[in-house]
């Protein structure tokens, strides 16, 4: 498997194409959902894992989620799978799509592309963040071999969206909802 940043860039590219095809009013709805999901995961993800752990501990006689051999993998997969599930749901329908249409011409195209790139950055960066936080547990599955490239270490890891935006999600989510309402 190639460097992680190749996968990261391909994902962003895919989301950019999706953004151009769907138009940014729909993409902004997805952005709202992504930010809300990030808020829920950062504020409540650990609590949910603790509830899950205490439930499983009754049957396994020990902590599986936080102390087991695959604890990092389980935690990482939990965050990533919940996040991916939210993304799939947000793309499957128009529940939070902004009402309106993109302007015609190159301006509309540029806005569509930018919104797609933005969503790609948020989605792929978040998944990378949860791999990074738990020390890339997919190594256990043979899906990744360290080390990270210099470029990824120096420039991409510090720019992950969760690390940058986590303290401000409480503002961004209401902001997106307000923008949707005033629209």
């Amino acid at each position, binding site marked *: 498997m190639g460097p992680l940043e190749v996968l990261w860039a391909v994902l962003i590219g895919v989301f950019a194409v999706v953004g151009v095809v769907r138009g940014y009013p729909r993409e902004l709805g997805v952005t709202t959902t992504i930010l809300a999901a990030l808020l829920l995961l950062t504020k409540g993800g650990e609590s949910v894992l603790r509830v899950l752990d205490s439930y499983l501990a009754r049957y396994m006689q020990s902590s599986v989620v936080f102390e087991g051999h695959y604890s*990092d993998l389980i935690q990482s997969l939990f965050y990533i799978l919940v996040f991916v599930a939210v993304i799939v749901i947000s793309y499957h329908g128009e529940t939070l799509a902004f009402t309106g249409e993109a302007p015609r011409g190159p301006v509309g195209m540029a806005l569509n592309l930018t919104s797609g790139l933005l969503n790609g950055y948020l989605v792929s960066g978040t998944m990378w963040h949860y791999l990074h*936080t738990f020390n890339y*547990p997919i190594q256990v599955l043979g899906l990744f071999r360290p*080390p990270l490239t210099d470029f990824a*270490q*120096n*420039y991409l890891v510090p720019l992950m969206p969760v*690390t940058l935006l986590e303290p401000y999600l409480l503002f961004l989510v209401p902001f997106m909802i307000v923008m949707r309402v005033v629209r």
Partner: protein
Amino acid sequence: MSLSFEPAVLQYLIVIATSLTASTAVGLKRGWKGQLMAFVPIVALWGLLGAKKEGLISAINTTYKGLLFFTSCGSQADTGACLQSSGIAEAMLVDPGNADQSRLLLLLVFVSAVVLVFTLVVRFSRPPTSLIQRLMGAVLGVANGFTLSYLLLPLLPYRQQINLPVASAAEEELPNIAQGLPSALSVPPVSVAAVVLVLFVLFVIVAVRLMRPAEV
């Protein structure tokens, strides 16, 4: 005096700028009467939340327990035994002893109420009849914006970065590549975050402004 630019400061700036902008906009649109209509309930609610904080937390926890009881023991024949064994009696969503959780709850309730009040005032009150009234509304809006930010600032969370649990078992066997990475970025993360936030907010505002009405 030097002011270090850190996440808490950026949070301060966001709160102050948002409060000022929203309050001034309401004042411009609905005049000083609209401002008063918005601000009296906001201040009253803030006082109410301060006085009845424990009651609110208790109500939230009681509702949470009720939900847990309904989902876990609703179908059981012996609900008393289920209640004992499942630990529902001790369960709580917001720990009254945890200042962070209590503050977050108050922040959520208060911000939701402020947004609701502003929306209702803009939606249902009458626009000012003269420019003077509009300007008086804006001036009152600036003053009220500062007051609003003063009410909000003590409720802010001050967490600087995510602190998720990392179990130690796998770390002993896997090369630890995620910790202690050098960074070639010489600017602090919070400055990068500020740039990302500004670009993001600007993009959304411009994109929404440029939207065409949906064709039927």
